[in-house]
């Protein structure tokens, strides 16, 4: 009998699986659930993108691409980032195509981290940063963002977390699950704090296209003085409804990208070639498809925010991504208790805020990757649940 515990790396064993697995298991097996639980677009990948993939398959374009990805795609990304976010990256040596944004985040963290290096992670945020930091031998330093600051990273909070060991600041904006964004002046304030340090910003901008209201997404790398200390992560999953294609990218100073590419070459070889061809089409010819999807998300966003506020769950206006993050403290319950009871009583599935870090306590995440009718039904059942509590 093998001793598996002894076989498996201690670092990996010490990483705790998500505490809400049990709640997820119940939700996933329950029938007639009205869920607002999935952070994945309900739209299909636009047909022209799928069709391009089919054509390249027919033409037999199924070999490895270069390690960095098809040059044609990197050039398109370079144009796209310039056009959309005023960013300038060389296709040849400053852009790497990866297997989703996730691979890019993982690879960047591993490339930058020496054992004991500190990585500042704002929370609530997507769940991958902390385990990735630990796997790289780094020390996650959690920065709890506050509702009263619209879940932004403030210069004061950042300053408190910086030590001589700080290596990376993760900036996960637009933010899953809070819907928060960082505006130009917020980022300028961050730049001032980082100005004389040797800290790199890893900016996860996977939701960049999904920014609502006044003004567009501002990339930290577009702030004067920030480009040299920023790696931008983006991808195709959210903006183009291409989740299953697994395609993302990292852009940054060539000194860093060279090393990230080296790691990618050994671990991955190259991102899926079919997906890369599809992505070229996405960037070249799908602005209108994206605009239509964004208009639809925006409509749902307004409806769901008003819906939560109307039934007595205070909900700030999310400015990005596709999540509402209402506060449930008025019920006197914890987030997990609220979600579990709501699931059992009314078969409505939401995600408890603390699944994204302890700072999420008192909140729940509601995705609006669902039709208006579906959202109304979930709100109606939630209202019933709240009424019965009284």
């Amino acid at each position, binding site marked *: 009998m093998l001793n598996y515990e002894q076989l498996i790396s201690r670092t990996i064993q010490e990483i705790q699986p998500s505490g809400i697995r049990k709640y997820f298991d119940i939700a*996933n097996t*329950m029938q007639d659930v009205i869920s607002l*639980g999935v952070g994945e677009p309900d739209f299909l990948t636009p047909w022209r993108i799928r069709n391009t993939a089919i054509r390249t398959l027919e033409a037999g374009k199924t070999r490895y691409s270069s390690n960095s990805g098809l040059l044609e795609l990197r050039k398109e990304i370079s144009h796209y980032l310039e056009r959309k976010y005023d960013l300038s990256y060389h296709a040849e040596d400053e852009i790497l195509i990866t297997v989703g944004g996730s691979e890019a985040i993982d690879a960047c963290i591993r490339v930058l981290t020496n054992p004991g290096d500190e990585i500042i992670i704002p929370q609530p945020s997507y769940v991958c940063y902390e385990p990735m930091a630990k796997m790289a031998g780094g020390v996650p330093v959690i920065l709890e963002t506050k509702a009263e600051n619209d879940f932004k990273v403030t210069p004061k909070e950042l300053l408190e977390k910086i030590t001589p060991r700080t290596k990376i600041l993760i900036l996960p904006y637009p933010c899953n699950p809070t819907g928060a964004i960082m505006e130009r002046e917020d980022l300028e304030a961050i730049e001032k704090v980082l100005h004389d340090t040797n800290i790199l910003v890893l900016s996860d901008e996977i939701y960049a296209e999904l920014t609502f209201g006044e003004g567009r997404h501002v990339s930290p790398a577009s702030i004067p003085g920030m480009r040299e200390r920023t790696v931008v992560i983006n991808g195709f999953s959210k903006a183009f409804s291409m989740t299953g294609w697994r395609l993302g990218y990292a852009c940054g100073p060539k000194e860093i990208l060279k090393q990230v590419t080296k790691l990618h070459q050994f671990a991955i070889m190259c991102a899926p070639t079919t997906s890369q061809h599809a992505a070229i089409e996405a960037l070249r010819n799908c602005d209108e498809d994206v605009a239509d999807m964004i208009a639809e998300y925006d409509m749902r966003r307004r409806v769901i925010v008003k819906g939560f506020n109307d039934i007595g769950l205070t909900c700030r206006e999310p400015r990005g991504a596709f999540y509402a993050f209402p506060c449930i403290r008025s019920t006197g319950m914890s987030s997990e208790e609220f979600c579990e009871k709501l699931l059992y009583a009314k078969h409505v599935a939401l995600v408890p805020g603390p699944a*994204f870090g302890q700072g999420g306590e008192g909140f729940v995440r509601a995705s609006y*990757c669902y039709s*208006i009718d579906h959202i109304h039904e979930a709100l109606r059942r939630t209202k019933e649940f709240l009424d019965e509590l009284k």
Partner: protein
Amino acid sequence: MRRKLLKMLNKNARLSIADLAVALGETEAAVANEIKVLEEEGILRGYKALIDWEKMDHSYVSAIIELKVTPKVGRGFEEIAERVAQYNEVESVYLMSGTYDLNVVVKAKTFQEVAMFVAKELSTIESVTSTATHFVLRRYKELDVPLAVKEPDERGTISLC
């Protein structure tokens, strides 16, 4: 808000005034008024259900009829088009570029009825010089909506990303 409102209604005419108002950032009164004005101006012409009649026991037969006509001096195709449009059997009438003039969509209970309608009514109109009837065998997409079997939501119930 006009364009945005029309786009939203075009996608889903059942959105409530309340939803439209929230989505557009307008008051309900303003939205209701705009809809009234659009109706009065003849821009918003109606709200109809999209029905897959094939799933019903008593289905319809429809056909696309290509009409070649001799236009009238002075009134062009208007007069004949308006006349064809009068029939209850006629669902739509379009003036076409290309090898024929009017595209007429006709619906009736049976193939026979459609054929008789074309023979007795359309082809006997004085200025109609020829007709060609194409029966619709199956509908795959109607008014932007694919009519194939609805796929279940593959995304599962809950995820963190």
